[in-house]
Every structure is written in structure tokens, then in C-alpha cells.
């Protein structure tokens, strides 16, 4: 089973899948683990339909487990969407989401989005998957006159963008748009793609314009054309089922397509994986360093295995360049494990590329827990690449939320299986991403510095920190949205905002927004805190206060409070109000407002606490920052 359409990085479903799923449903809350375990396998269309029904039946238990992010998705399109809709909730489980899916009536897609009183107004989706085929967009028949062809493409793109804008304006929903799968049937032949107005040309230009526009605005895109190419257009398209029932592509491709949609949803919610943990022996090189020594392992050097493993290193290095953190987890003496990094000529990865290097004889699951702690991320942010099926099995058993691709025993497959699994799907690329790996190196240096300086205040002063606090702006928009979606622990109200939402705050006169940047003598941490207060004549109320846990203990919160307080006083307000909305993950900030000098003002009716600070009592204090 090494066919992309079968999601080969996942284990095949157990033979008794239906029976196990029935048992899990019967077990109620106790069956959630079993259901999530089943959902982590490669499921066919029927199994996904069964899983989707199970999600509906067990929604309350799944929600209570607090292991899934609830997301509401509407699907609006111009052809038969039932099979896709039926596959989404089951697929979403393995991406950490509890999906509620609403299918807009057949052929009603555009109307539902353009009409503010449509059924979408009641449903209130977070996201809308827009599913328009080439027939609906006027791209299914050639337009062999160049000017008319260009106009046809522009009209199609404008229509899609109009629906996207309508989703946001009418329902506050973020649209996910799709490119169109090319057709394999040529009209002229090899000339088609260059000849203005052929179907190949129309779809190609439409896709190009859509991709550029979406990428530039950090909009959400499922590149269906790319998925179809990967599967193969002959296999993707199913003319019989299109003519019979207006199914947009082969049923066999539905599980893969659903997986891609869920990746984009998860990425938009900050649930993509953040760290790749690499085994060493037979993963980063061929052979066992402890037995073979530096001269005995194969890496590069024109051998098939050596080149395959070098490709794994190259891909890991590329991931690091785009902001994925690398770690090593190997069963070896540390000295032996480091030898190739220090002495082998062909090594692409260097010691300083690895944020956490673990080589010992402890079980790998325990080591992975340790790696997650050192990086201050959840184990559910880890991907673990290991050639050894026993190690993979141990980690899957002990840490079911770690992603462990089933890579098989042919190293040439490792890069494609790891990459095609889409664990690191991203919906933006901010400066902080590019620099993230450096930041983790710098953090390691910082914790070294603390050990040398005993007194904490002296330590903070020695960091020579510069804190830059500004309102939201276009430059920071992507990163601000990223933080809003990813921060779970230091997050007072856990409100999730897309890039479009953040843009709206920028222009909102009633919002007081802050993005906080922190640099010190080891380097720049980038934007590490996001704060939004709602301005009122007497009271300013905190909508959002979150911070990256990387900068806990630096007294950034106090600098933020000082900034908010001074602005509120200048505007004539007399009080600041803060709310703590508890979640499974943010108990860390239960006493945040208390520590900042707020007074307890009662419990909130739906859970949580309210806090008030009288501004006439506010006093500025000395903080260990240079403020900019």
C-alpha cells in the first residue's frame, strides 16, 4: 500500500474497524480514546462516513474530553457535495478538531454566500469551503479569442473573490477557496497550455491568479489542482460519476481531499505541528554509528541508501529554514551520536541546527516528552521520524498525539511520506517563522546565562531587554493572528482571530490594540504578546491578553499594563476591567490580573472571573526594559 490516494503515511484501518467503532460509541466518555485511535488510521469513504456519524452521536463526549478544537464549517458549492461533507468530520479528528459541518443546498452555493439572510446566517460558520467547478465558472469550454479568454478568467477569479468577501462581510466567516483540477483531455495537444482560451489555458491562468492573490493576502486556499496532479488527472477525474451524479472527482480520492481540507483548517487554527524529531541510525544515515563508526555509515557518496538519507537531511534543513524546529532522539551514547555531526564530510545537518539533542538509552516516548518540555510546546506539536517500527509503535502507544508517519523500510520513500503527510501545513510565512530556529538556539543560551547569575533581578537587567509596544499594523498582522490561534496557556480569554479579523481591529476606533516585541542581548524574540482592550468612556475592558510562554518571568505583563493604563488615563477613563475565561490549558493565568494589582470583582455568569483596576490608584514602577 504505497499509493498516495491511500494516505500511506497512516496505518491501514484495523480489519474489525466497524465493530471497534460501535464499541467506542457504546462506551461513551470512556470510548473517546478508542475513537481518536481509530480516526488516526487511513479510512476509506465508507469508514469516514461511519466515523462522521459517530462524531455526531458522541459530540458531547468528544467536546468534554477537551482534546479537540471545535470548528464550524459550511460547504457551499455548485455540484454534489454530500460525499465530501460526509468525510470531513471523521477526517478532522486526526487533525485535532471537532468539526460541525453544514452543507448548503444543492446548487445554492453562491446565493447562500451573497444573501446575508441565507441559512448561513443561522448556522454562523467559522469557515466556508467554497467548491466551484469549472462548469460553474465558465471555464469548461474553450474561448479561442484572446481578449475574451482573458475576460473569462478575470470574471471567474472576481466571482470567487466576491464570494470570499461576502462570506466575511455577511457572516464573519473565513472562506477557503480552491484551485481547479486541470483536465487531461487536450484540444490541440501540447499547444493547449500556451494557446489562449483553451480549457487548459483558462484553468491554468485562473489557478495562477487565484494562488497569487490568496498567498499575498494570507487567505485560505486548498490547491485542489495540486492534489489532483499528485494523484494523477486520469485517476482524479471520473466522467461517469460526473455525468451521472455531478460528483466532482473520483470517490477514491475523497479521503485524501478531506485530509487536505482539514490540514488547512487546522493550520488556520494554529494546530499544525511545530517540531520534527529525528532518529539518527538508518534515518539520517544508513547504518548504526555505534557499531559502524563514522567510516562505516553510508551518507551521500553516490550510494543509493546514502543519497536517500542525505535527502532526508536536506528536507529537514529546508523545514528548519521555514520555521520548523528540529530535535534529535536517538538510542545511542551521546558521544557516538554526535560523531557524524562533528566529523562526517557529507553531513548536511549541523549540531547547531538541532534545538534539542537527546541521545541516551531511555525509551523514546519519555524522551519526546522531555523534548516538548524543553521547547515549551505540547507533545501534540511533535512529528517523530524513525525507521524502526518497534520505536514507532512504542511512541504511538504511549503518546497517541505525536504524529508518527508510517515510513516503511525504503529510505527513498522517507522524504515523500513525511512531506505528503502535510504535518507542517502553514497559512502564512512571517519573519518570526524564518527566525524561529535561531530563537530556540538563543533561548538555550539564555537559560545558560541564568545559571551563571544567581540573583533574578540582576539576571533580568543583564539581559539588556528592549520592549517595543505598538498598535496593530499590517506588518505584524500575520504574526498577531498566528499568536491568537496558537496561544493556549498564557491566554486570558482564548479568542481566536484570523488575519482578516486582526485587520478589522486595526481600523476599529473602539479597539485599543498592542503588539509587543521583545529583544535582548542574545537576539530578537519578535512579537511575543498581543493585547486588545475595548475603549469605553469610563471603563476599558480587556478582550484579549496573551503572551508567548517563552518570555514568562520577564515582567513584560507589567510593561503592557503600564502602556494600557497610561493610554486609558489620557483618554479620561477611570477603570480597567479584565476577564479570565478558564479553559483546560490556561490555569497558568488564573491569577494574572490579581498579580497586576486588580481587585476581584465577582464570578462571570458563564464561568470565569472579573477583575477591576481603579486607574487613580495606578503607579508606574521601574521595569528592566528600555522602552521603544
Amino acid at each position, binding site marked *: 500500500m504505497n499509493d498516495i490516494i491511500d494516505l500511506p503515511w497512516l496505518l491501514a484501518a484495523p480489519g474489525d474497524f*466497524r465493530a471497534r467503532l460501535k464499541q467506542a460509541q457504546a462506551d461513551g466518555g470512556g470510548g473517546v480514546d478508542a475513537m481518536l485511535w481509530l480516526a488516526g488510521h487511513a479510512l476509506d*469513504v*465508507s469508514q469516514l462516513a461511519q466515523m462522521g*456519524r459517530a462524531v455526531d452521536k458522541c459530540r458531547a463526549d468528544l467536546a468534554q474530553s477537551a482534546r479537540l478544537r471545535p470548528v464550524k464549517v459550511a460547504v457551499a458549492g455548485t455540484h454534489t457535495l454530500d*460525499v465530501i461533507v460526509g468525510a470531513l468530520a471523521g477526517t478532522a479528528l486526526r487533525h485535532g478538531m471537532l468539526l460541525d459541518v453544514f452543507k448548503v443546498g444543492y446548487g445554492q452555493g453562491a446565493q447562500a454566500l451573497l444573501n446575508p439572510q441565507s441559512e448561513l446566517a443561522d448556522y454562523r460558520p467559522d469557515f466556508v469551503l467554497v467548491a466551484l467547478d469549472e462548469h460553474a465558472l465558465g471555464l469548461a469550454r474553450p474561448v479561442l479569442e484572446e481578449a475574451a479568454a482573458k475576460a473569462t478568467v478575470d470574471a471567474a477569479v472576481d466571482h470567487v473573490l466576491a464570494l470570499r468577501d461576502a462570506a466575511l462581510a455577511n457572516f464573519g466567516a473565513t472562506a477557503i477557496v480552491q484551485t481547479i483540477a486541470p483536465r487531461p483531455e487536450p484540444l490541440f495537444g501540447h499547444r493547449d497550455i500556451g494557446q489562449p482560451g483553451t480549457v487548459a489555458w483558462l484553468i491554468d491562468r485562473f489557478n495562477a491568479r487565484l494562488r497569487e492573490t490568496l498567498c499575498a493576502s494570507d487567505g485560505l486556499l486548498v490547491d485542489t489542482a495540486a492534489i489532483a496532479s499528485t494523484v494523477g488527472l486520469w485517476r482524479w477525474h471520473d466522467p*461517469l460519476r460526473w455525468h*451521472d*451524479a455531478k460528483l466532482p472527482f473520483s*470517490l477514491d480520492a475523497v479521503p485524501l481531499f478531506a485530509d487536505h481540507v482539514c490540514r488547512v483548517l487546522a493550520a488556520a487554527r494554529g494546530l499544525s505541528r511545530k517540531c520534527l524529531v529525528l532518529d539518527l541510525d538508518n534515518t539520517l544515515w544508513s547504518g548504526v554509528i555505534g557499531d559502524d563508526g563514522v567510516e562505516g555509515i553510508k551518507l551521500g557518496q553516490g550510494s543509493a541508501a546514502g543519497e536517500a538519507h542525505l535527502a532526508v537531511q536536506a528536507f529537514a534543513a529546508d523545514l528548519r529554514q521555514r520555521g520548523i524546529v528540529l530535535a534529535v532522539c536517538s538510542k545511542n551514547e551521546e558521544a557516538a551520536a554526535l560523531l557524524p555531526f562533528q566529523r562526517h564530510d557529507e553531513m548536511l545537518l549541523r549540531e547547531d541546527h538541532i534545538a534539542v539533542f537527546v541521545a541516551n538509552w531511555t525509551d523514546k516516548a519519555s524522551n519526546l516528552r522531555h523534548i516538548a518540555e524543553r521547547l515549551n510546546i505540547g507533545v501534540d506539536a511533535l512529528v517523530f521520524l524513525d525507521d524502526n517500527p518497534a520505536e514507532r509503535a512504542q511512541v504511538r502507544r504511549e503518546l497517541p498525539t505525536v504524529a508518527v508517519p508510517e515510513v516503511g523500510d525504503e529510505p527513498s520513500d522517507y522524504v515523500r511520506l513525511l512531506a505528503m503527510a502535510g504535518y507542517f501545513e502553514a497559512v502564512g510565512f512571517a519573519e518570526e517563522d524564518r527566525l524561529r530556529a535561531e530563537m530556540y538556539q538563543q533561548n538555550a543560551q539564555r537559560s545558560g546565562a541564568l545559571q551563571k547569575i544567581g540573583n533574578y533581578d540582576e539576571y533580568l537587567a543583564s539581559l539588556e531587554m528592549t520592549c517595543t509596544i505598538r498598535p496593530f499594523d499590517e506588518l505584524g498582522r500575520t504574526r498577531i493572528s498566528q499568536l491568537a490561534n496558537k496561544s493556549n496557556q498564557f491566554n486570558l480569554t482564548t479568542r481566536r482571530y484570523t488575519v482578516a479579523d486582526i485587520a478589522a481591529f486595526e481600523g476599529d476606533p473602539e479597539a485599543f490594540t498592542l503588539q509587543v516585541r521583545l529583544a535582548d542581548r542574545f537576539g530578537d524574540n519578535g512579537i511575543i504578546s498581543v493585547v486588545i482592550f475595548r475603549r469605553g468612556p469610563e471603563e476599558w475592558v480587556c478582550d484579549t491578553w496573551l503572551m508567548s510562554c517563552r518570555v514568562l518571568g520577564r515582567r513584560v505583563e507589567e510593561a503592557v499594563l503600564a502602556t494600557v493604563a497610561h493610554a486609558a488615563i489620557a483618554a479620561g477613563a477611570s477603570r480597567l476591567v479584565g476577564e479570565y475565561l478558564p479553559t483546560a490549558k490556561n490555569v497558568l493565568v488564573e491569577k494574572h490580573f490579581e498579580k497586576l494589582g486588580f481587585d476581584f470583582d465577582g464570578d462571570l455568569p458563564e464561568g470565569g472571573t472579573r477583575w477591576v483596576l481603579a486607574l487613580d490608584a495606578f503607579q508606574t514602577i521601574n521595569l528592566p526594559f528600555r522602552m521603544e
Partner: protein
Amino acid sequence: MNRDEIIENVVEIMEDVFDLDDVAYRDALNAHDIEEWDSLSNIRFMVAVEGRFNIRFSNRELEALQNVGDLVDMVQQKMG
């Protein structure tokens, strides 16, 4: 494969596609007898049968099927 083995496979597929336990097979069984068997689950059923036996049905052949017995006969015919 003999007719009984084909039936066994088809029943297994029906239980999976329609999410039913213990489908009671008879040749005359068709969509009127099973609530979950609608036009869309029928497509999933046909695709699954094609996949299981490595055969392909033309549209004309699909439209000629009246019940599961016809389907089993057609599978047997296509498998030689």
C-alpha cells in the same frame, strides 16, 4: 470465485457501505428494502464492488441492475 463467495464479499461491502450489521441476503434484495440505500450510497456501493473485484461497470450495465442478484450475476460474468 464461485457465486457464494461473490455473495459473501458483496454482503460484507453492503454492511460497510450502509453501516448495517447482518444483512440478510436474498437475490431479490434492492434499495426499497434498505433505508440507508439511496442514490449516493448506491454510488459508494458500486465503486466499492468495482474496487473489490477489480472490474468496471458501464453506465448501461448499472442502469440494468434491478437487485443484488443481478449485481452478483454481473460480477460473476465479468470475472469470467
